[in-house]
């Protein structure tokens, strides 16, 4: 299915292709083709949503070995109690029955693995059953496909690794922006750069964070617009007689670069508040999208409402960023991780339901990401920093209900892990991102400009969407 971006670039390509047909081609056909390409088509909308789990989500208690053989391996490594009961940082097998995953297709997994989702992910299980949630196994940052021997090699020229592995802030940046902390261009922002010209009215709203500042949604030209769960925030004093005095002070340009950049953000906030809140006033309030006590739900709800406002705002391609923190479960994993999973489950499920209500389920694809996975083995009551992890892709266009990638052995000794069950990724973030970029509308030639190392990988369409 061709989902090309209807940008000026494509229009010009099309015009040139028509031109080579020769002077006999009626001008009317050319014009019709061009107008079809350039016209705003309300049905041709796509939104990519990144759900970032800050801290490094524990993959082993998210997508959990369930068949007897592999469950027992998981249970042994994670300190379960006798009789397949919960213990240490292992779930009891009976706890996983309700969320056991039956794939509707896809390859036989390593060691005939069957998986269950964490018990709190019942909503995601339903979406899996409906074929709209996919699980990408063992994905993580790589510069090139890497074996254990290459990882252990000292020749970093021949066997390059991503910089500063196992470091929170750097891996967050590597996942989002292909570089360590201080990177300023994220691949979501690069998608925004390409998509901006499609958003003729408010290209400033191409890349949006409903969370804190995130380099993921900063491009070279596309910049992050940040919004709160309550919508854009109006500066109250600008509606009083103090308006002119205040405005001149908070928006004036300065020769001091920090002062000037501060004022630029304030100007943008003021300029967009009326536009954004005005557009939000007219859309479905989504009252059934409960957000109480769940900051991730609050973020996804405003994302859903912004998507609902896409026609008013004149948007055709958007990239969103939401996040949840607290995943660095070195301690109290069995106390804290279930609460995190509940929040992720409730927020993702409600978001999917909202996109269905709004009639845009197949136009919105959400994927999860995290600094890294964690160790399979236990440190007593938690797990430690890892690398590869399992992630979700959800949406009406997703080829879900099955697994993608290579399942890792349930082991702390096999060559697909780098010690303590920290996974050596078998799918790269580049391949994962390229698949999403293609769905978004990018072609093969555009991928290297989004993902600098993508040429090192052969499979740039994993097929989950």
């Amino acid at each position, binding site marked *: 299915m061709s989902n090309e971006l209807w940008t000026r670039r494509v229009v010009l390509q099309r015009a040139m292709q028509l031109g080579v047909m020769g002077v006999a081609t009626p001008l009317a056909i050319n014009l019709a083709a061009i107008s079809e390409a350039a016209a705003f088509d309300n049905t041709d909308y796509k939104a990519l949503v990144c759900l970032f789990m800050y801290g490094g989500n524990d993959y082993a208690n998210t997508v959990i070995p369930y068949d007897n053989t592999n469950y027992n391996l998981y249970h042994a490594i994670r300190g379960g109690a006798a009789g397949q009961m919960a213990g240490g940082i292992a779930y009891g097998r009976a706890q996983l029955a309700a969320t056991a995953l039956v794939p509707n297709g896809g390859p036989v997994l390593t060691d005939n693995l069957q998986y269950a989702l964490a018990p709190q992910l019942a909503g995601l299980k339903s979406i899996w059953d409906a074929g709209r949630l996919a699980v990408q196994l063992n994905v993580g940052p790589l510069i090139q496909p890497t074996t254990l021997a290459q990882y252990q090699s000292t020749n970093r020229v021949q066997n390059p690794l991503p910089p500063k592995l196992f470091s929170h802030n750097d891996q967050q940046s590597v996942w989002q922006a292909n570089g360590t902390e201080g990177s300023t261009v994220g691949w979501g922002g690069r998608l925004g750069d390409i998509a901006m010209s499609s958003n003729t009215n408010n290209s400033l709203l191409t890349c949006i964070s409903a969370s804190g500042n995130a380099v993921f949604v*900063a491009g070279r030209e596309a910049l992050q617009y940040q919004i709160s769960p309550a919508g854009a925030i109006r500066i109250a004093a600008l509606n009083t007689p103090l308006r002119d005095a205040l405005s001149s002070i908070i928006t004036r340009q300065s020769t001091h670069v920090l002062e000037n950049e501060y004022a630029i*953000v304030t100007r943008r906030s003021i300029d967009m508040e009326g536009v954004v809140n005005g557009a939000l006033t007219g859309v479905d309030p989504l009252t059934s999208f409960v957000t109480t006590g769940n900051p991730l739900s609050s973020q996804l709800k405003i994302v859903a409402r912004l998507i609902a406002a896409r026609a008013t705002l004149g948007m055709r391609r958007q990239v969103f960023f939401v996040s949840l923190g607290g995943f660095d479960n070195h301690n109290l994993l069995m106390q804290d991780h279930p609460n995190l999973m509940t929040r992720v489950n409730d927020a993702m499920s409600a978001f999917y339901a909202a996109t269905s209500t709004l009639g845009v389920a197949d136009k919105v694809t959400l994927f999860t990401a995290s600094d890294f996975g964690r160790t399979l083995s236990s440190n007593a009551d938690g797990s430690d920093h890892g690398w590869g992890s399992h992630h979700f892709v959800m949406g009406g266009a997703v080829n879900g209900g099955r697994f993608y990638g290579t399942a890792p052995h349930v082991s702390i000794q096999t060559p697909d892990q780098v010690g303590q069950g920290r996974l050596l990724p078998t799918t790269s973030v580049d391949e994962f991102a390229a698949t999403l970029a293609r769905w978004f509308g990018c072609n093969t030639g555009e991928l290297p400009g989004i993902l600098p190392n993508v040429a090192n990988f052969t499979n740039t369409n994993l097929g989950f969407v």
Partner: protein
Amino acid sequence: RSDDSLGQSPLRSPSVFNFYRPGYVPPNTAIATAGKQAPEFQLLNETTTAGYINFMQGMTRNGYYNFDVNPTYTALLLIAHDVPAVIAWLNLRLTANQLSANTLSVLQATLSAFNVTASSGANLKLDMLATACFLILCSPEYLVQK
């Protein structure tokens, strides 16, 4: 709440890294182009800039939700009738005399319009003093320490 809060509540940072990273470079800025870092900019966005201004509007006049933390303006009340003196007092203490000519002129005009005299009521004086503080606290000339 985003609409009138600072997003920097003590002991409530979102991660073990506190509120901002020392290596943060704000994307799409002249700071990034110059290859510099600006850690505090990790907190600055369209929501926080507006939330801060709304917070200061209430704080300068009524304190923190009328709780115990209240500005009393004790010293300023004594000179509230003297707009240049009030501006000079605040300029020194809040910005080490670094307010620009433009900002000083806006302050002079705005504060003079209150027409505060020595015999004016306390409320009028407090309104004027709170406005003076509010405008300065919202200025990037105050927010960026030089």
